[in-house]
């Protein structure tokens, strides 16, 4: 389940006392409820599901997989350090 697509916040405004945004998906714009990601700013990317932003994309985390793959490049083989574990 859960079709959630990243889009860029281009405008914010309030409607019926909810924080709303105009979000850009590659050139099509949709009005999206930002109430659950109230810290969103213009220029941020959010994941949108059924017209609601669920989370803001963390740019640093988004790069992790590519850093990992580059690490593979440099070593020319598999990087053996385990990925971060959740502290328990």
């Amino acid at each position: 389940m859960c079709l959630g697509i990243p889009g860029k916040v281009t405008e914010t405004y309030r409607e019926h006392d909810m924080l709303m945004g105009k979000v850009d998906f590659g050139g099509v714009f949709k009005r999206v409820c930002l109430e659950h990601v109230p810290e969103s700013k213009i220029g941020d990317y959010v994941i949108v599901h059924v017209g609601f932003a669920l989370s803001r994309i963390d740019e640093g985390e988004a790069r992790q997989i590519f850093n990992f793959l580059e690490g593979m490049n440099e070593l020319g083989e598999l990087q053996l350090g385990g990925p971060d574990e959740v502290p328990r």
Partner: protein
Amino acid sequence: MSKVIDFDQLSCPVPLSNYEHVLLGHGSGGRLTADLIQRLFLPAFGNEILSALEDQATVSLSGMNGLRAPRLAFTTDSFVVRPIFFPGGDIGKLAVHGTVNDLAVGGAKPLFLSAAFILEEGLAMVDLRRIVSSMREACALAEISLVTGDTKVVDRGKGDQIFIATSGIGIVPDGRALSIRAARPGDRILVSGTIGDHGIAIMSVREGIEFETVLESDSAPLTDLTRVMLEACPGIRCMRDPTRGGLSSALNELAVASGVGVELHEASIPLRPEVRGACEMLGLDPLYVANEGKLIAVAPPADADRLLEVMRSHPLGRNAAIIGEVVEDHLGMVTMHSVVGGERVVTMLAGEQLPRIC
């Protein structure tokens, strides 16, 4: 957690095999439409020309009363698009170009058009005037004459504003025999430009899922493009205009009719970013979205590159691309190689493609 769940209960509804009413899906150009044609219309009218199920019927009047006459292409179409005015056009423009293109992709020169209007009582005259004016412009652009027509009015509430039904006649030069049965393994599949533009433009103003975009319908007459294509490459096997049901329906029908397989390459399919964005947002597959003003062509391998060049130098073919080939495998099926390397089958849509949440 107390008790272990017993998983051995099966749950399944009574199967739905017969619909008692016509569904919207029967008009979507996918498998339900195909079933309706096969089970209801063909048995009723059964003749060779109809059963070929080409986009147009090529008929010959030669030999009647000692006549020598050119072959005629004869087609019919009907237009029920909602809303009737949409970004890039209206139902009237669509009606003219759509009919013209059904003829043009058969290699015919479109000459004459008929139009029957079914109007709902209460339709604003200013709207009707606008549609008719748009049709006049479209006829001029397509160099076709509207030579006969009809008008009916139905009670308010019995006919959603306006429906238009058309017929078109064109001439097919001697020796030309394009057909959906003519594809051969090794042939290349070309598309004349970006896909999904029309369907997404319509969807952008559809109630419940509307969104803002600069995207417009790509409705346009393809007569001139097909003319230059056939001049440069008389060996073209087949051309189709992928309207309802999108690229997928057109190619699936081709694969079945020709008894071949088709393989596409996702990375080669031209797509506008806005169409892509809308499809991602709504969970739609662009292969199933309707097109206007676009065609697919099947060409012998030796001709493909030259044909591509010719298409690209035409205003309506700027974004033309070779998107796949005809193969001997998986006969009657269309597959696609995804951008990351795996392969999937592109099946015929069952009914309407719906936006999804999953």
